């Protein structure tokens, strides 16, 4: 009697297990050659992005722009005759989800490489996994120095200007312009905030900050932190915050009657995002004189061929609409990957892709030099400062780079626009 029931159980159990096995046979992806994600006429790559969750509103447009630029390249014949397929997975800015979606990309979708995984906390969670599996991990979207460890993580390359550089350059400017200011900081309670603060202190000295407040992404009430900044009498506040929390900080400060000079990391300082997604009609007033940094073309640049080109791609492949910092960030990302792929040879392998990046074949479209070499996996080496005036965010002053604890002026100029923005093997 009982035995029979147990048999029934065992059958159901076995059936469900085999259903699982059956699922797994069609997950292979089928590469023509031995290189994962590469066939005769396609290259499949993937990324993890916060499409939902507290960071989403600020960043969801990046991967859309990257996809659009790949569509543009594909319509013009692809790279070495291969179409680029770009799989975007949502991780909600939650490291635990990143773990799952990146495993899906690598083990189930068999991607060739991961491109532009977004977020320092999120991407840190898959760093070892990607390197252990020897998956090229290109152009991580986050300014942590973690990405630049060629010895330990030979497959990982940075992209953003590092938080320490941004912070040092901002602090350097603040000392010149507001020498008598009371300097304070408002930042995320993880490596983003820590690295940024380290960069500030490098320039301002160990007691250079009158107050340093932190927020947690999980808690959207920042009233207490901002009131502490007010109590400390801050008149220059450095921001190491993602867009949503920049908006919260600026909005809450205005409610409390605090109107300091804001100086933001590029990661949370895109005026377009802050206006469209958060502050709306209050943006021009709240963000007047807001200083931020960036290392790519700004949409307000005049006579910038890259901006005109990106606007064209935006109109034809990304549903039109205004071009903003996020779109330029995403399209530049796609351009850089295409450069690397073009230089990786007729039959690219994961090794040849990484060698191509290290060989200096990738220039990007930005205004500062890139650090890539076999010994260095840093992305953009510096920044230029921008300021909001009457609702328009535009560059001003010099472009700076930060190396070996020193801020210096960079006068190399921007990357020239060639071949309709489609990289070729050089």
């Amino acid at each position, binding site marked *: 009697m009982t035995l029979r029931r147990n048999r029934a159980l065992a059958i159901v159990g076995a059936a469900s297990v085999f259903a699982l096995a059956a699922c797994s046979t069609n997950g292979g992806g089928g590469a023509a050659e031995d290189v994962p994600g590469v066939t005769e006429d396609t290259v499949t790559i993937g990324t993890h992005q916060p499409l*939902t*969750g*507290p960071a*989403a*509103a600020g960043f*969801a447009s990046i991967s859309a722009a990257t996809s659009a630029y790949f569509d543009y390249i594909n319509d013009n014949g692809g790279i070495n005759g291969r179409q680029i397929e770009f799989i975007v997975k949502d991780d*909600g800015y939650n490291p635990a989800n990143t773990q799952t979606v990146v495993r899906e990309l690598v083990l189930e979708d068999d991607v060739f490489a991961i491109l532009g995984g977004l977020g320092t906390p999120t991407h840190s969670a898959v760093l070892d996994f990607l390197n252990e599996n020897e998956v090229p991990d290109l152009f991580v979207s986050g300014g942590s120095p973690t990405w630049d460890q060629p010895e330990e993580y030979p497959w990982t390359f940075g992209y953003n200007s590092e938080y320490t550089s941004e912070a040092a350059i901002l602090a350097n400017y603040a000392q010149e312009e507001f020498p008598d200011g009371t300097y304070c900081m408002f930042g995320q*309670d993880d490596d983003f905030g820590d690295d940024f603060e380290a960069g500030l202190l490098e320039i301002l000295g160990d007691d250079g900050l009158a107050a340093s407040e932190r*927020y*947690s992404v999980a*808690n*959207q*009430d*920042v*009233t*207490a*932190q901002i*009131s*502490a900044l*007010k*109590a400390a009498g801050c008149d220059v506040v450095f921001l190491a915050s993602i867009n*949503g929390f920049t*908006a*919260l900080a600026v909005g809450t400060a*205005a*409610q*409390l*009657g605090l109107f300091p000079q804001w100086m933001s990391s590029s990661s949370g300082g895109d005026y377009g995002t802050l206006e469209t*997604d*958060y502050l*709306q009609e209050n943006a021009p007033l709240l963000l007047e004189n807001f200083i931020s940094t960036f290392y790519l073309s700004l949409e307000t640049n005049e006579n910038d061929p890259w901006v005109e080109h990106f606007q064209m791609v935006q109109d034809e492949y990304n549903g039109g609409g205004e071009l903003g910092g996020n779109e330029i960030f995403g399209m530049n990302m796609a351009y850089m990957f295409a450069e690397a792929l073009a230089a990786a040879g007729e039959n690219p392998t994961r090794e040849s892709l990484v060698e191509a990046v290290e060989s200096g074949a990738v220039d990007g479209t930005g205004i500062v030099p890139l650090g890539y070499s076999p010994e260095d996996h840093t992305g953009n080496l510096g920044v230029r400062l921008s300021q909001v005036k009457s609702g328009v965010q535009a560059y001003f002053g010099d472009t700076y780079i930060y190396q070996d604890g020193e801020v210096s002026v960079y006068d190399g100029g921007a990357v020239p626009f060639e071949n309709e923005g489609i990289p070729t093997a050089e």
Partner: protein
Amino acid sequence: MELERFIFLTVDGLARGAVYAAFALSLVLIWRAARIVNFSQGAIAMAATYIAFVVTSMTGNYWLGLVAALLGGAAIGLIVERGVMRFVSPVNPLNSVIAALGVLLVIQAVVGMLFGNGYYPMAVPFSQEPLPWLAGLSISAYDLFVFVCVAFVVLGLAVLFGKTNVGLRMRAAAFSPELARLLGVRSTRMITLGWMLASAISGLAALLVIPTELGLNPHATDLVFVYAFTIAVVGGLDSAPGAVIGGLVVGVLLSWVSGYLGATLSPVAVLVLLLAVLLIKPGGIFSVTKERTA
């Protein structure tokens, strides 16, 4: 400077506490009507706020949105009570908790499918900047609006239960459903009414508190629900005045904790408070019932 900060934190805490109090009131209403702690209350309120958001975006009128939140909340309360909770066997109290959690998941998923999981910034009808003629108090016009709304809810409930026939019947049905039925009160209808009223109030509370945060999203009320639950327990689940006073006290307490000890600590403070009250005075501070059984 220190005093100013103290006043600011206290006033800010009172404003938030008022909203939490309204939310806690909705839990008390359902508890009194059906002896159920409604774990889906946060989700119901969140969904009502989405309705308000849609109406306000379509008409450009905040007040129509506010009415929509009240009506929408009541409608969702009706559906949840008549469609689900009524059929849950009361034999085991865990059943109603599990069913309510199921409802919570369904509502969050449906809203997520309809609107996506993104954040929508919400407009407020009054400025959130401090009023100049109340300088030093840091009270904004919006804070005043919140106080007025909550006061309206509290007074409305007091009148309803104290002065009207319906209120009397609701109290009778909650006090002893069987006896009330013998006396001609349609107890099941009164329970439904309690759910609708509670859900409308929680919808209003969510509509008031969400604009002060990052924006509307399917999880916007998760934390608010925990605060409200704590307040309802501190005040005594049976006691409406307890919920109001508890709301204001907890609001101020949380504001002090986050102001002086760090914002991240407020959920921990809530946990400690909840445990302390339940272990030391399990009936809640304002409740007259001695022992509570669920």
